């Protein structure tokens, strides 16, 4: 592999892991608060759809992002009310929501885009940050969408809030032992609702990254399991934000290999390459069994 080719590989790894990183950092917050947000996939899909529709109608990708955030609100509300207020099984409700969103977005896509499905929507151009972008050789790696830099910023912000603030202590406490947390005077319910909404927003941005930044259009079921991969990244990262980010990069690299291997002249069946990140995720999680420290009250509903 030449150095240039490697740099292209690195750049595409980072680009492909960006949506995962956005969604996974949201999921991290949710799971820290004790909620397995299985509807992450649906939230991403809804964000991708909402972003594409808003961009198509306004022509502005910024309004597109706003559209993604608005579109995910009812989904996050549904998830939050079902799992927190009504204490339904988190996995089952999440899967139900995913199926619901797949149906909704497919229907909406055919109604709205049906006649002009070949049309491209406006998107974000990659930006080249000063200094870093001018570096020889590695400069191309930094030639990325602004939303990616936002994602990295958010990871840093989440890491700071969780480890250095009272809010972070409350978040962790709510996921480890909500009853005791409530006794201490912490509004556990509010934290858990808030975590789900935060996850929704981050997942929506991750979805919008796919539709607005990556391919400039919406297709049916376009997330193709990215939401599930993001959940796996949180498990693989053992509920630590730094490792979660590493897991996202790993899955991004596996996806990038799909395009890189043929370019390097290595011929493998396409289906195998598409499987690669998922197989990797499976192996990673299987290999980690027993050595994980999940929040103790993960997926356990809370009530007084």
């Amino acid at each position: 592999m030449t150095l240039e080719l490697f740099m292209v590989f690195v750049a595409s790894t980072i680009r492909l892991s960006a949506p995962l990183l956005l969604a996974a950092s949201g999921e991290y917050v949710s799971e820290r608060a004790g909620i397995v947000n299985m509807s992450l996939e649906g939230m991403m899909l809804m964000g991708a759809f909402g972003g594409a529709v808003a961009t198509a109608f306004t022509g502005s990708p910024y309004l597109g992002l706003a559209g993604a955030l608005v579109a995910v609100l009812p989904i996050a509300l549904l998830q939050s009310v079902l799992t927190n207020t009504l204490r339904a099984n988190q996995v089952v409700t999440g899967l139900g929501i995913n199926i619901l969103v797949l149906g909704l977005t497919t229907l909406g896509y055919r109604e709205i885009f049906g006649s002009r499905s070949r049309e491209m929507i406006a998107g974000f151009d990659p930006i080249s940050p000063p200094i870093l972008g001018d570096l020889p050789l590695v400069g191309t790696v930094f030639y990325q969408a602004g939303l990616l830099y936002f994602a990295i910023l958010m990871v840093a912000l989440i890491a700071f809030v969780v480890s250095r603030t009272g809010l972070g202590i409350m978040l962790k406490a709510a996921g480890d032992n909500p009853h005791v947390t409530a006794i201490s005077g912490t509004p556990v319910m509010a934290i858990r609702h808030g975590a789900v909404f935060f996850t929704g927003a981050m997942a929506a941005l991750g979805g919008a990254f796919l539709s607005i930044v990556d391919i400039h259009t919406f297709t049916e079921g376009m997330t193709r399991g990215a939401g599930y991969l993001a959940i796996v990244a949180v498990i693989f990262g053992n509920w630590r934000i730094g490792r979660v980010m590493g897991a996202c990069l790993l899955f991004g690299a596996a996806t990038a290999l799909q395009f890189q291997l043929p370019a390097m002249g290595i011929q493998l069946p396409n289906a195998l390459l598409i499987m690669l990140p998922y197989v990797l995720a499976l192996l990673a999680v299987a290999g980690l069994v027993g050595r994980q420290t999940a929040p103790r009250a993960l997926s356990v509903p809370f009530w007084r």
Partner: protein
Amino acid sequence: MIMRSGGASSSGAPLANNEASLPKLELTDIGRDFGSFTALDGIDIAFRTGEVHCLLGENGAGKSTLCNLIFGVHQPTRGFMTLNGAPYAPNGPHAALAQKVAMVHQHFSLIDELTTVDNLLLGRKFGLVDRKAEAAKILALAEEFGLDIKPHAVVGDLSVGQRQRIEIVKCLMQRPEVLILDEPTAVLLPDEIEALLKVCADVAARGSAVVLVTHKLAEIRKIADEVSVLRAGRIVARSTRPAEDMNDLTTAMIGRSGTGGAFGVASLPPRAPHARSRMVREALQIDGLSFFDQTGARRLDKVTLTVDQGEIIGLAGVEGNGQSELGSILAGLDHPSEGRWFVGGKELTHAKPRAITAAGAGIIPEDRHKVGAVNAMTLADNLYLNQTKSLTRWGLIDRKRQTEGATSLMKQFDVRAQGPAAPFSSLSGGNQQKAVLARELMTPNLRFLLAMNPTRGLDIGAIEAVYRSIREAADKGIGVLLISSELDELLAVADRISVIYRGSIVGTRMASYDNRAAIGSLMSGTATQ
């Protein structure tokens, strides 16, 4: 001097000290019902600044309920409370804390995964935290009261005593005017108890009213300025000079003349001394058993123990010294790392629970809810849980025979329920335990019975029934290993008492009240053989 409620002076104000300190917190005619059950009734009580007020009573007397009312966990059904003369009606713990009423719970309200500092900051800070500065502040407060804590240790790694100190610091951070401690000494070692009592006295001396719940008379003698005795939800006696009124207080607490014995077992006739003869076979033989837990910590250290047929051996020890692990091994839920064990001469070291039952061992587990019974099934199902095969024909359960058998077992062991078909979860704790006992005593070819804390959470009547059954079993030639943290119960029921400390047997004594002090010092690890 001691005053009985219902007498002339039931106003709640003790005669002495009346002017010395005005009540900080006063309860007037407080009552609390849970459904049709009256947990508390007609409670008049006053807590004063600078005093340690002990609430004395047996399990289920209403002590914890009373604390929960003061701390706002529950609200009284009747009556009212005043704090500093103003009406006080907290609708939750927050409201209580806001008015400087704090409580150290029987079960700690700490989060195992967080550090000491984070636990203490939880719910108090929202924004940026400077852990170094906070740790310094916390340490200063802890040192003021002579509490030794580790600010940056993860709570889950700490001992019970250390966690309790964190819990106390957590309360003291509020500078409470009323501090409630719900049975704080139940989980502590003797020297830790000393330190805790001193802390209570210090807190009171610094201008708080301290409410100390306990059922240990020795502690009251040491520290109490005033004692109120609860029995069956009522205050039955109070005293401002508890050291002098000890006997009266004891009598009031157990509702019958106390002999210093254990409640509920005191009325059992003394057991004829077990004659050890060479003809008797061993029911249980444990040979050099060691056990390491998942983290590699040694929980049992070469335990060797023999229980003869017809003998009741008590295993005494402060909780957490390896009793649970030994129980799990004898139940077949864990396997020893070293050593072997036998029931009736048959080696069961690596046997599965089914094989252990087949060898004639009955197991009354520590936690009847989790391991002892299936709550969602009926009483009859639970009574025949280990003998379902004997009731089945061609894979079908003969319900008629099951119901008949269950009905007669219910009569024999005085299990009170609506009927054999009642859901197990609908039974009271005592009746659940009696049912588990009945099932285990019906084990075919029973040779050995393991009973772990069989009376925990039971009322006197049930305790008596449980021990009566256990003794009858021993009289029939069954060897019994009774694991309990209640020394008085062991003294009353067992023939010999072995003491477990840090995973090894540190001594064995005859079960006699004369040996009580010796056994106590063995339990605390201060004495060796």
